[in-house]
């Protein structure tokens, strides 16, 4: 007597294959769901936003009249914030990464710094807004200025840049470090002339992606007291400002349909900026991919 009843195995085989087919269909459906949502989202924004999109829309200040409103102040505010955030977060992030990868001993302190960075990456952005409000706006007396906003954003994206830079530094092969040390180069010479340039493409890719996240951030700057309605361009680091996402929030939260369409037009501009930044990041990544 056979232990396995071949007939019943065969019978069940059919239903098992059917289950596999059905499951595959569901999985594809779920995956397509994301794609469909992305399609609908882009379609809706183009339909709503294209009518108001014009050169005037970019160069005009905000206005109570939808047909005269534009994003000039917000656009320049975003650029000003980036002008602070990009260098500050780059220097702090890369410095931290170099410290952790090249200098730090494997001890409790190093581990603590590493765990701390991982946790910082999970703190909601709005909490960084509260930090900036207390430390930069009030304690340091910077007010709701470009500088306060830029510094807050730097701290927000710092963990992302640190982690990306660490990964980039780790891909630099130890053989070329040895070659440098073998010629009598000091540690700092080796880092500055060999490790850093070799890791730079990866570091830049990570930094640009982190900055593109900062460009789209709204909450921390709202909490910081960035203005929602601005009819001027920041003049220096201590000027008040608004940024693109805050302008979009302002328009979205108004009840009139026309302002929603303005918001959609602004979203198109915002997405184009992000698309450009991401394309640059991907270009750098692909161009310098796997050189070692």
């Amino acid at each position, binding site marked *: 007597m056979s232990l396995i009843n071949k007939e019943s195995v065969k019978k069940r085989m059919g239903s098992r294959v059917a*289950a596999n087919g059905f499951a595959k269909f569901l999985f594809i459906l779920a995956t397509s769901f*994301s794609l469909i949502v992305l399609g609908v989202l882009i379609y809706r924004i183009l339909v709503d936003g294209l009518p108001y999109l014009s050169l005037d829309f970019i160069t005009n200040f905000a206005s109570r009249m939808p047909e005269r409103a534009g994003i000039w102040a917000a656009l320049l505010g975003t650029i000003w914030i980036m002008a602070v955030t990009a260098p500050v977060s780059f*220097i*702090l992030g890369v410095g931290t990464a170099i410290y952790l990868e090249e200098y730090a001993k494997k001890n409790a302190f190093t581990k603590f710094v590493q765990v701390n960075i991982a*946790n910082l990456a999970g703190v*909601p952005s709005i*909490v960084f807004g509260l930090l900036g409000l207390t430390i930069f706006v009030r304690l340091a007396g910077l007010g709701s200025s470009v500088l306060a906003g830029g510094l807050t954003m730097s701290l927000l994206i710092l963990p992302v840049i640190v982690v990306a830079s660490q990964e980039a530094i780790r891909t630099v092969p130890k053989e070329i470090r040895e070659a440098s040390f073998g010629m009598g180069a000091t540690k700092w010479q080796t880092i500055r002339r060999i490790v850093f340039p070799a890791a730079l493409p990866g570091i830049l890719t990570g930094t640009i992606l982190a900055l593109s996240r900062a460009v789209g951030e709204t*909450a921390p700057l709202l909490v910081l007291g960035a203005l929602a309605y601005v009819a001027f361009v920041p003049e220096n680091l201590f000027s008040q400002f608004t940024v693109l996402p805050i302008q979009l*929030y302002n328009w979205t939260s108004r009840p009139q349909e026309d302002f929603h369409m303005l918001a959609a037009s602004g979203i198109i501009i915002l997405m184009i900026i992000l698309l450009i930044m991401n394309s640059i990041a991907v270009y750098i990544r692909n161009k310098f991919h796997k050189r070692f």
Partner: protein
Amino acid sequence: MSRDKTNQKSIRSMIQENKSSRSQSAVMEKVVPKIFLICAIISIFTTLGIVFTLLTETFTFFNRVSIVEFFTNTRWFPFTADKNADYGILALVMGTLTVTAIAMVVAIPVGLAAAIYLSEYASAKTRKLIKPILEVLAGIPTIVYGFFALTFVTPLLDSIIPGGISIFNALSPGIVVGIMIIPMIASLSEDAMNAVPNSMREGAMALGATRFEVAMKVVLPAALSGVMASFVLGISRAIGETMIVTIAGGSRPTADINVTESIQTMTAYIVQVSQGDTGYGTTIYYSIYAVGMTLFVFTLIMNLLAQFISRKFREEY
């Protein structure tokens, strides 16, 4: 191959001469690591700054509002005369948890299914096509999702749900937060499943298992900790999400949840206060720190839990 002896000497001697400048570089060797150490310490100060800020301002808040009321009152009505104001965080927590729950109902099945499809079924070509799209989806600013929730999803739900839905409600932002989190869960879960060695799959396949059975009985259990960690991180993201719920969720804090009605989350409350003209030093001003502290603790617990899960049950192949 002739070598110019005089010149050869000169290079070696030039290097010797330059030795004097080496004391200068010796200083650099000592100073540079210190500068980088300071950079690393700033990240610690950021954490300390967050904790310090939240603690001190929350402390001031609890000097004015009883901590017992904060945790037990179910009403949150700060914008009335001080005597009548209610500060029961439960109302905001319930708003946050409702949105989070709806988001996870959307994100977990869809994200996990996408992960299984990508890691177990899709060809390399399909994967190469879909992964960038997921990355795009993950890179869309939350303000855009908020706009989408308010101007598309809410009207859509209103036309589907019998009896309609309020213009501000928990359902629409919940769904959209879920959509926002799908790429994160999909990609983290896929990473975990990709880490399962092929030999385990082949073993099961050789016994005649279908792909579906391999995915559910071999791969998923083996990758479980990574998958669970991705869920927990997703929850953390949903709790901290601000703009979508601010735009589409409304500003009516209530512990008595009806998903078709307006609610308020912790994050949305903080935005509401910073948008208003509440003066520095008022109880309302301090309340955003107490709310922020609660939010911070929630997300910290989730993040630590995620780290714990993926470390504790790290798959050893």
